[in-house]
């Protein structure tokens, strides 16, 4: 009654969890991207749903506010026919003195196959993967990693540029506090891109060069020959922590506006993981301009997350279901 499952199970994937891009090989990243490409095609059909994860239970455990990532994962799970449950701290026991591990074990006891976790503390997805039987997908842990965001950024670049190897990618903004920056750096460098991180000296973490990137504090120099500029959201509380002097100064020195765009390559891609601060790190005319691919990133996020859920859920059960 449903369309055929469009994906042949792919060899080369044997991970139950997606905790970060640091531990993935270039081949594994490419496998996710290729799988996502197939799923993107599903989104163009009249019936956008496939039965791949029918009978699976996926819990969205978001212990930190999120709108688009949570929605994107929920939708991805629904399109794969999984049952989804939301779990957020305001309605959970986390505020009543129960530890995270206890809470997670309780959720798992209800029969959960995949836990998608967003948490303010780095390392929580790894910690959960050590105590739970379910697959864990990291939807962002503090400033550590946000692997699906990194993947959807890389997917978008590959889709529009046709390759990753040799491209010049600038990640611009608050690098220190950005999990998006870290996941992008791991993924892009593994696939052969040249990455430059650019931002105020107070917001670029120490020894980041050891991750295989260049560091710049001069935006115009950094973006002059860039193929991609990935802008990061600047958090206002960083100003209170004295990490930059004022929003006005940040915007003048590190923001991307129409004037600055004139000094970039004509085919440069402007990316942003959202939510954007219009007029701070990105001027409205740039956010809405021809080079902006910000909404394409959101669309691709869905396909990437379908691919990740599909891969970690494993193909075995899927085959069994088909025979039944």
């Amino acid at each position, binding site marked *: 009654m449903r369309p055929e499952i469009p994906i042949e199970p792919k060899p080369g994937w044997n991970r139950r969890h997606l905790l970060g891009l*640091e531990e993935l090989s270039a081949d594994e990243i490419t496998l996710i991207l290729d799988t996502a490409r197939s799923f993107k095609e599903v989104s163009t059909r009249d019936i956008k749903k496939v039965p791949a994860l029918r009978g699976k239970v996926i819990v969205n455990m978001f212990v930190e506010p999120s709108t688009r990532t949570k929605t994107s994962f929920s939708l991805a799970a629904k399109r794969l026919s999984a049952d989804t449950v939301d779990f957020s701290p305001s309605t959970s026991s986390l505020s009543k003195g129960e*530890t*995270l*591990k206890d809470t997670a074990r309780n959720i798992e006891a209800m029969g959960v196959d995949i836990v998608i976790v967003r*948490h*303010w*503390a*780095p*390392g*929580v997805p*790894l*910690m959960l993967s050590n105590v739970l039987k379910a697959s864990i997908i990291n939807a962002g*842990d*503090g*400033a*550590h*990693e946000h692997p699906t965001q990194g993947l959807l950024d890389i997917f978008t670049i590959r889709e529009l540029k046709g390759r990753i190897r040799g491209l010049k990618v600038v990640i611009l903004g608050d690098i220190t506090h950005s*999990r998006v920056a*870290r996941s992008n750096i791991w993924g892009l460098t593994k696939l052969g891109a040249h990455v430059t991180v650019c931002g105020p000296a107070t917001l670029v*973490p*120490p*020894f*980041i060069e*050891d*991750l295989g990137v260049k560091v710049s504090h001069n935006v115009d120099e950094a973006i002059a020959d860039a193929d991609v500029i990935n802008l990061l959201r600047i958090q206002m509380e960083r100003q209170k922590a004295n990490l930059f002097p004022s929003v006005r100064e940040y915007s003048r020195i590190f923001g991307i506006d129409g004037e600055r765009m004139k000094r970039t390559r004509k085919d440069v891609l402007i990316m942003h993981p959202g939510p954007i601060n219009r007029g701070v790190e990105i001027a409205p005319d740039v956010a809405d301009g021809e080079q902006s691919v910000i909404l394409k990133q959101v669309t691709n996020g869905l396909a990437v997350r379908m691919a990740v859920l599909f891969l970690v859920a494993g193909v075995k059960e899927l085959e069994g279901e088909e025979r039944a």
Partner: protein
Amino acid sequence: MSSYLIMGGRVIDPASGFDAVTNVLIEDGKVKTLGSASPRGYQVIDARGKVVAPGLIDMHTHLREPGKEDEETIASGAAAAVAGGFASVASMPNTDPPIDNEAMVEFIYLQAKRCGKANVFAIAAATKGRKGEELSEIGQLVRGGAVAFSDDGNSIANADVMRRVLQYAGMFDKAVISHCEDRNLSRDGVMNEGYMSTVLGLPGMPAIAEETMVHRDIMLAAATGSKVHIAHVSTAVSVELVRRAKEKGIRVTTEATPHHLVLDETALRTFDPNFKMSPPLRTKKDVEALRRGLTDGTIDAIASDHAPHSSEEKDVEFSAAPFGVIGLETTLPIVLTELVGKNVLSLNEAVARLTLNPARILGIPRGTLSAGAVADVTVIDLDKEIEIDPSRFISKSRNCPFAGRKLRGCATVVLVGGRIVSGGNG
């Protein structure tokens, strides 16, 4: 009181440089003589094939009483101490309430006496309430038995207050123990600032947060002529600062912990809160520098910084967990295996850093086996293989960074004041 003949062990007494196989006679709670005689009428402790050392001293522990008796008590800490080979510990004053008056110091000694295990020497708060503002009643605290002064984890931020503490404690010739950390620089950090903190996305505590304070306190010690002891030194620069200060004759001493001497920040890849402490685990280069400092004598003592935490507090998200790990029951095996066993220290040097040196820094009449000394003795089996299993610790807490390690060497018998408080019978 029983009299003992500790027979046939390799007796190491760094105070006199003694190192030979001989017998130790214990009578009336004191060391009577060292020598080959084996008179009758003594209970024999067979130490053949073992090392007989002065009772080990851990000069940096947290026993949590009063205030956090679910994590440790003076009794449980003192029992854990002797299980780990320590005849004496010095306890830090960061209890609730803090140890900042004479009665509270006496309470520590009373509780230690009641349990009758290790000696517990009280380190008292340098300022009232450990707030870094007003001097505590240092003279009366000394009368109550305080052996040194420290605000412990609360580094005294105000340099003038630190100067006055040094001047005042100097009248009593007591050391001021400094946890060197500029809180403005360490901010909300939870680990060493560097490559690993960048990779893991955890806020870092830069090495300079420690080093600027080490430098300041050395200068204040030089200016006042008083004794400063740098607690748990952790960076290469700190070691070098202490080394140069000692060359100039400034009265500075320092200690290092087993975890800072053995582990580095790469352990945090697991996000295991049992690797979270302050100062944090540093880089491999810092570990090497610490080991060199230990070898050349810049680092005087090895101390555990035993910091018990309940599992419901500690076994949580790394960022949310409190700082600190326990060490009373692992320090000696770690030192023997990782430092003596790997030629960082000779056995004699290791014994000195666990006995004589901390005794001198604290000014306590311990740390030697010379005739007439209090009979605190630790018998060590260098060949005994053990595996660290925190579930079997005597300590009430389990937050140990060395779980599962296979180590070689541990204490088999401990005497405190001429009484067997651990092991024996065989």
